């Protein structure tokens, strides 16, 4: 794996070269938050931020996405027949994506590209046409716990390139072949820089002090975790809004709606949330998850029990901490998981 060096003063050129092929996006400051925005030039990039407010999952799974369209005319032979939406017209590059968010995309790959019959063509198209240049974390937040959910501040999974910020310069490590290609014209990193990056990794990992334990969740049967008494308290303060699910980089549930206006019609998918009672409501009125407790439990069971069972051990969480930061009633995912994992006293 080649390690290259890019001086920050040369960023402008580097970005300009990339821009000839890609549309480039990165987290940029906007009113005190960092939001994914289109990048015009290298000097707009900032490296001193925690993480973007919303995760970059929206680049692959937009909150509202047209899947198909049709001519809304029941009397015409070709009217009312669905036609698929076209894919991306230009490749994209996400600059400064955090390792946790890139890891989340690899978890979602298993969901959206499960097998031949369930191949989400819209997800796949965007994944294939997007390059990910990651930025390792130097100063994790107090809500971060990536190291306990198969991830870390310098985690490389899912990335094409990982950058480590060394002050006036960036160390860039090519991870995929696509990534190596992008870096081929840059200077080789010296051993000193490589050492600095390695030291930084150790320090960043060490600075993550909170975590979750899942050993008992893993070893217990589904129903045993599901029937635990702790669920009777966890949900109490929840107001069943969708904040945690919308901010989560691995939450992926959606709703499909048809819309018509005049002669035009479309079928769209919108982010949905398991926190909503409507999510599972049958037309008959029956609701398999009719209570707030059912819904709160579903979210945590899905991420920490069901997904590992279904996705070869992949947890539906990368420890980014967004849910905990944004929850209006302070439901802390770490507390919930650790209490799911607690030893039962008979």
């Amino acid at each position, binding site marked *: 794996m080649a390690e290259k060096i890019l001086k920050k003063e040369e960023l402008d050129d580097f970005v300009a070269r990339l821009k000839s092929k890609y549309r480039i996006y990165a987290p940029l400051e906007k009113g005190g938050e960092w939001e994914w925005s289109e990048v015009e030039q290298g000097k707009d990039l900032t490296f001193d931020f925690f993480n973007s407010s919303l995760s970059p999952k929206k680049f692959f799974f*937009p909150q*509202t996405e047209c899947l198909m369209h049709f001519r809304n005319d029941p009397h015409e032979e070709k009217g009312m027949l669905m036609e698929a939406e076209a894919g991306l017209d230009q490749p994209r590059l996400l600059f400064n994506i955090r390792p946790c968010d890139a890891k989340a995309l690899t978890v979602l790959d298993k969901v959206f590209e499960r097998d031949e019959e369930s191949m989400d063509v819209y997800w796949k198209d965007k994944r294939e046409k997007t390059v990910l240049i990651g930025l390792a974390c130097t100063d994790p*937040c107090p809500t971060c716990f990536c190291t306990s959910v198969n991830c870390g501040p310098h985690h490389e999974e899912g990335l094409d390139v990982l950058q480590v910020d060394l002050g006036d310069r960036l160390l860039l490590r090519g991870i995929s072949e696509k990534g190596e290609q992008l870096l081929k014209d840059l200077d080789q990193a010296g051993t000193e820089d490589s050492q600095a990056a390695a030291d930084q990794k150790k320090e960043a990992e060490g600075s993550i002090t909170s975590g979750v334990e899942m050993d008992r969740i893993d070893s217990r049967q589904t129903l045993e975790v599901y029937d635990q008494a702790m669920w009777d308290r966890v949900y109490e*303060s929840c107001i069943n809004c969708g*904040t945690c699910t919308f901010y989560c980089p691995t939450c992926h549930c959606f709703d499909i*709606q048809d819309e018509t206006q005049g002669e035009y019609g479309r079928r769209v998918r919108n982010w949905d949330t398991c926190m909503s009672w409507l999510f599972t409501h049958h037309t008959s009125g029956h609701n398999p998850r009719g209570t707030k407790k059912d819904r709160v439990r579903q979210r945590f069971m899905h991420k920490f029990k069901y997904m590992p069972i279904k996705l070869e051990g992949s947890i539906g969480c990368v420890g980014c901490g967004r849910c905990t930061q944004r929850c209006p009633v302070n439901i802390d995912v770490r507390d919930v998981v650790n209490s799911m994992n607690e030893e039962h006293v008979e």
Partner: protein
Amino acid sequence: MTTIVEDIRASARKLLEDKTVDCVIGFTEGSVPMQARPFFAYTPEETDLLTWNGFCTSNLANFLIKREGRNAILAQGCVSRNIVGLIQENQVNRDDVYILGVHSPGMLDPGKIKAAFAGRNILEVRENGQTLLVKGKDFEEEVSRKKFKRDNCYTCTHRNALIYDEFIGEQGKQTGGGDIDKVAAPWDKLDPDQRWQEFEEEFKDCIRCYACRNACPLCYCKVCFVDEHNPQWCGKTQDEPDIYTFHLLRAFHCAGRCTDCGACESACPVGIKMRRLTSKLEKDIRDKYDYQPGLDLESQPPMSVYRPDDPEIE
């Protein structure tokens, strides 16, 4: 620990020991800085976990809706007014609620604190009378508490609980000092196009998580109009008309009922100022109907009754 917290715990403990109530609804210390968690104490021992501070921004009246049993609830001015509203609207039975009235210190806005310390990890914020002690890994700063209050708390009209079964601590200053009518005043200067522009600018970042709605004690409809699908009043997409329809209709549903408690703004993860809308509606209600929501149990919210001499609203 402050005296008020000790007093809250003592009162709560007694209520549970005497079996006056089944549960005391209050707050407990949050797991991360600048957050407090709504908390439900069922046993005398659990009351030791209760707390009361400037980060208790959820409106607890929300949790009374459809709740069974007899509950005690911690309520400052706005929350007590919402309880009045819920009783008026037959959502809560007065006899089933034991109100622990408190004076509001004026709640804090974590967004403002974070913005003042942008780029730095805040590990602890301690309230110390009129100052806040903000701590991070390698910094510690004392700032004036007043600067970081929520917008709605500056213009608060009733900081003391209005109805209560027991008042905890001393009654304090009743108002926040600001002029509530001024919040809505900018709208009057704008023509319709400018108003629309302002409105769009404020609400464009909405992600439709419905935290505002779900945090609001006025929003207890079994099926919210945005969730109705037959007929479908409002689309479910992120398209502007769908987002705007949601916020406009919700605001109108709340007219004459909103106590300006600020729970919606505190809950909003993207920092939308819903009060830009509600302040105008409530000002109209004050001007036209001479009515403020939740002040007494006997009155009726003007939008829920019809009178032949109802004022016209252009």
